[in-house]
């Protein structure tokens, strides 16, 4: 039972990532792993992001998300997007980039802010001082 026509409320990349959720799960635990969380189930969006850091840069990312397809897709997209980023990149990351890249409608912008909060939270939890080489 396939051949379903696409729901055009969701762009192609959102559909792919929301369905396949690449990057879902956890990074193997360790001192080089940083976690960021944000959101509230009652408001319909909770995310946790994990990044493995090496040489002051993100080398691997994983997410867990509870939320709408755009939110899941954006979390998945972030795990790729932030690979190679340093702590200041995480601090500076702006949700609008996800909105643009994935074609998220304005009604969902609030959820992307939640995602930005989680990225900031990860930055805060960055192991050691800024520039530390775990």
């Amino acid at each position: 039972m396939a051949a379903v026509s696409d729901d055009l409320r969701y762009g192609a990349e959102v559909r792919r990532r929301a369905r396949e959720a690449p990057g879902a799960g956890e990074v193997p635990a360790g001192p080089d792993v940083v976690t960021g969380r944000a959101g509230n189930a009652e408001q319909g969006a909770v995310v946790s992001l994990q990044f493995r850091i090496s040489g002051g840069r993100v080398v691997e990312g994983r997410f867990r998300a509870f939320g709408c397809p755009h939110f899941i897709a954006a979390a998945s997209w972030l795990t790729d997007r932030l690979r190679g980023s340093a702590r200041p990149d995480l601090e500076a990351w702006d949700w609008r980039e996800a909105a643009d890249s994935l074609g998220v409608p304005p009604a969902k912008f609030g959820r992307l802010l939640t995602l930005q909060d989680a990225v900031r939270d990860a930055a805060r939890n960055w192991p050691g001082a800024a520039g530390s080489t775990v």
Partner: protein
Amino acid sequence: MSAVVYLDNAATTPVDPRVVEAMLECLGPAGDFANPSATGHEPGRRARARVERAREEVAGLVGAAPGQIVWTSGATEADNLALFGAARFHRSRGRHIVTSKTEHPAVLDPCRQLEREGFEVTYLKPAADGIVSAEQVAAALRPDTILVSLMHVNNEIGVVQDVAAVGRTCRQRGVLLHVDAAQGAGKLPLDVERDCIDLLSLTAHKVHGPKGGGALCVRREPRLGLVPLQFGGGQERGLRSGTLPTHQVVGMGRAYAIAAAEMQADAERIGGLRDRLWQTLAAVPGVELNGHPTRRVPGILSVTVDGVEGESLLFSLADLAVASGSACATTSAEPSYVLRALGRSDRLAQSTLRLSLGRFTTLAEVEYAARRICEEIERLRAIAPEGIGAWRR
């Protein structure tokens, strides 16, 4: 054609091929397409005869006389005609109306409009199982109450109200009772006489008839006055002007005649499929049934899934045509007011699926749907952070 499994029969149903056949007989140049009001010529009289036969079929399903049926464009119009028609006609007798919080918007929105026109409306809150008791209705009646409007079967959760008990209460107190039977007619027995129902709203398209065909069944004895919504050619004894759409009316008649003949068999089969679906889903932790466990129509199953976000669940089930909130409204992100009235939180109300079965639903479809829903619940929970919801005992 799509391979989507259609489980949204509470929103609308496919037209039964036997109904399509009857409609086709009233469309093309060789058919009975004429204007049923044009009784001055033979094609008009043939169309009229078909319309009157349909009137008997529809009346027969609900224990009414054919003369009680006023054709409308659906239950929305029937509800509006009942509420506005009765309220405006009887306004000198009183301006209080009683209804419930879980009515369809076709009842609630006219009530809000009537409030703007100087009426007062009491909105009863059902119990957590969705039932409004006759005692609750009785307690809400006032000397200036002119009308009670209570639905038969709820479109979102499928619970069945005890309209007979409410009918007796209203009759004793001299208050008119309107029942919106859009979802129940043709699926469960109804009898306007026995149940003391003064005004009954009907629609064809929830029971494999055509969309855009409906009726209001109006008490005749003693005569019940109504102010029309639509004025014009004076059709339907002046209560509803407009050219009668022969094929639509005939389709509704055929659909109701089939429903009358096959009600029990359909109810057993569809109820069995629904039970099967529910058994599979009930085994998943954190899945709960909405509404009374037994006082329900066979075809509607409403389940709330804890720990899964509603929009993503629907998105993931793109191979199923199912509903979340009320599918009668245009898509909206608002949580269902029906589930809210039953005490569900916003989050849980949004994580709700309405699965509604019909005459053409098969066992294979139900089994496929049950499997897919379980799969997607599992998948979405697997990618969610821990600790969302209370479903992990």
